[in-house]
C-alpha cells in the first residue's frame, strides 16, 4: 500500500495541463494546451506578448478557470496545492499592500505560509534588507519586483512560478535575481517562469516551452529552441542568371526566397551558410546578415509547423 502511494507520487507531474482552452470573447488565449512539468525542472515559458503566457500561468494558479480541459498541480486542483503551501508565485499583475513597510509585508507572507522561512532570511535572500523599513508605496519598479519575489519565496514551496520576473530591473539587478533563482532551482525545486527574452530562457532554463497564439509551438532544451528561434536572415544580390539549385543546397537553410536579382534566405547557422555561399564561387553583393526577432522567429517556426502538418 505504502509502496504504491510512493510510486504514484513520483509519476504524478508537478503541473499537468490536459487539452486546456480559455477564451475571452472571440479571442482564444489558450488553445488546447497540453503539457507536463516534472519535479526539479527549470522551465521557461517563452513567447511574444499576447502569446497566452499570463493566461496559462493564471490557469495554473487557479486564478482563472479553464473553459475546457483539466489543470492539475501535484495531482490536485491549483487551489489545493496553494493551500498546502506547495506553490509560491510572483505575478506581473500582483499588487502589494499600500501603507505598510516592506518588512511587515514579508512577515505577513511568512505568517500565511504553512511552511514558512524566517522573515530575516527571506529578506536577505531577496536582497531587500536596505529597504525593509520603507513603505511599500515608495518603491521603484525594480524594488517592488524584488519584494514580490520575497513574497513568492516566503516558505518552502516545491514549485515556484514567476511571470516576467525581471520586468523593470536593470542589468545588474537582473543578474542578481537570476543568481538567486538558480539557488532555488539547485535546491530541487521546480521553477516555471514566463519571459519574452530568448536570452533569459537560454541562460536559465533547462527546458523551454514556446507558446504562440495560445498553442504550444515547441518543447525542448534551450539549445534546440535556440536553433529553431535563433535563425538569421541573409540577403544578397547576384548578377546575371541565377542558378537556384546550388543555393538551395547550402547548409543550415530553413527558407529561400528569390525575387529578381535579390536572394533572401534564413539560416540556423549564418556563419556556416555564408562560408558555403562563397564556396560556390559566386560574388554576392550588398550582403546583409541580421538576427530574426523572436516574434519573427516564432512566425517562421509556426509556418514550418503548419507546412509540416498540411
Amino acid at each position: 500500500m505504502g509502496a504504491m502511494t510512493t510510486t504514484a507520487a513520483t509519476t504524478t507531474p508537478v503541473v499537468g495541463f490536459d487539452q486546456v482552452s480559455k477564451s475571452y470573447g472571440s479571442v482564444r488565449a489558450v488553445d488546447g494546451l497540453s503539457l507536463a512539468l516534472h519535479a526539479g525542472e527549470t522551465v521557461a515559458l517563452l513567447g511574444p506578448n499576447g502569446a497566452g503566457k499570463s493566461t496559462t500561468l493564471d490557469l495554473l494558479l487557479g486564478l482563472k478557470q479553464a473553459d475546457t480541459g483539466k489543470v492539475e498541480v501535484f495531482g490536485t486542483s491549483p487551489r489545493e496545492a496553494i493551500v498546502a503551501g506547495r506553490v509560491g508565485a510572483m505575478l506581473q499583475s500582483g499588487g502589494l499592500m499600500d501603507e505598510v513597510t516592506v518588512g511587515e509585508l514579508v512577515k505577513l507572507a511568512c505568517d500565511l505560509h504553512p511552511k514558512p522561512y524566517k522573515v530575516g532570511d527571506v529578506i536577505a535572500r531577496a536582497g531587500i534588507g536596505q529597504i525593509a523599513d520603507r513603505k511599500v508605496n515608495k518603491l521603484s519598479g525594480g524594488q517592488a519586483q524584488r519584494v514580490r519575489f520575497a513574497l513568492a519565496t516566503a516558505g518552502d514551496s516545491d514549485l515556484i512560478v514567476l511571470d516576467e520576473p525581471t520586468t523593470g530591473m536593470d542589468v545588474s539587478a537582473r543578474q542578481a535575481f537570476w543568481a538567486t533563482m538558480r539557488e532555488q532551482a539547485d535546491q530541487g525545486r521546480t521553477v516555471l517562469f514566463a519571459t519574452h527574452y530568448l536570452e533569459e530562457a537560454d541562460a536559465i532554463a533547462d527546458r523551454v516551452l514556446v507558446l504562440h497564439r495560445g498553442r504550444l509551438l515547441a518543447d525542448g532544451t534551450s539549445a534546440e529552441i535556440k536553433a529553431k528561434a535563433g535563425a538569421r536572415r541573409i540577403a544578397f544580390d547576384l548578377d546575371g542568371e541565377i542558378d537556384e539549385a546550388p543555393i538551395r543546397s547550402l547548409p543550415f537553410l530553413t527558407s529561400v526566397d528569390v525575387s529578381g536579382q535579390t536572394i533572401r534566405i534564413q539560416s540556423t547557422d549564418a556563419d556556416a551558410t555564408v562560408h558555403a555561399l562563397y564556396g560556390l564561387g559566386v560574388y554576392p553583393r550588398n550582403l546583409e546578415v541580421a538576427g530574426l526577432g523572436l516574434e519573427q522567429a516564432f512566425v517562421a517556426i509556426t509556418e514550418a509547423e503548419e507546412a509540416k502538418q498540411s
Partner: protein
Amino acid sequence: MKSLIKLEITRALRNRKFLFFSVIYPSVIFLLVSNQTGTVDGTGLSIAKYVMVSMASFGALTAVLMGNSERIAKERENGWVRQLRLTPLPGRGYVLAKTASAAVVSLPSIVVVFIVAAVVKDVRLDAWQWLALTGAIWAGSLVFAALGVAIGYLASGDAVRPITMIIYFGLSILGGLWFPSSTFPTWLQDIAKWLPTHAYAALGQAIEQSQSPHAKDVTLLVVYFALFAGGAAWLYRKDTLKA
C-alpha cells in the same frame, strides 16, 4: 489570518487623516451642535444626549464605511487581492480582516464621543446604559461595514470615492444623524424612517430613554445587514471569477 487582521489594524491606526475623520471629527461636531439647551421633540432627550448618540453612530459609520470601500476597490485594481489569492488565506479572510480592522477603529470613535459628552457636557447615564450604548452602536456598525465591502466590490477606480461620499452623506443626513429627522418635512420623514442609519441611531436613543431597542429598528437593521452582506458576497464571487 490573524496576522492580516493585525497588519490591517496597524495600517488603519497609522493613517492620520482617516483617524481624524473617524475619531476626532464626530466629537468636534458634537461640541459645536450640543451647545443648545432644551430637548429634542418627541424623544424627551436633551439635545446633548440626542446628539451624543447621533455622533457616536456617525463616527462608527465613518470608520467602517469610508475605509473599506475605497481600500477594497483600490486593492482589487492594483492586484493585491490577486496576490492574496496565491496564499493559503481563504477567500473570505480578506473581507473578514477588513471588517475586523474597521470594527477596531470604530470602537474608539464611539468611546471618544461618549467621553467628551460626559466630561464637557455633563451627560449622565446609568452604567448599564453606557455599556449597552457602546455595544449596540458597535454591533450596529457591522451593517455599514458590509455596505462598505459591497461598494468596494461594486465600484472601481475614480468612481468609488464619489459613490461612497454620496451614500455616506445621504445616509448620515437623511437618517437624521446630523439633524433630528423630526425637523424634516413629513414626506422626508416617511422616507427617513426606513433608512438603516435612522434605525441605527434609534437603537441608541431607545437605550438613553431606558427602553430596550424597538423591534422594528432591530428588524430593519437585520434585513439591511442580510441585504448588504449578501450583495457583498455575490459581488465578491463575481469578482473572483473575473480576476
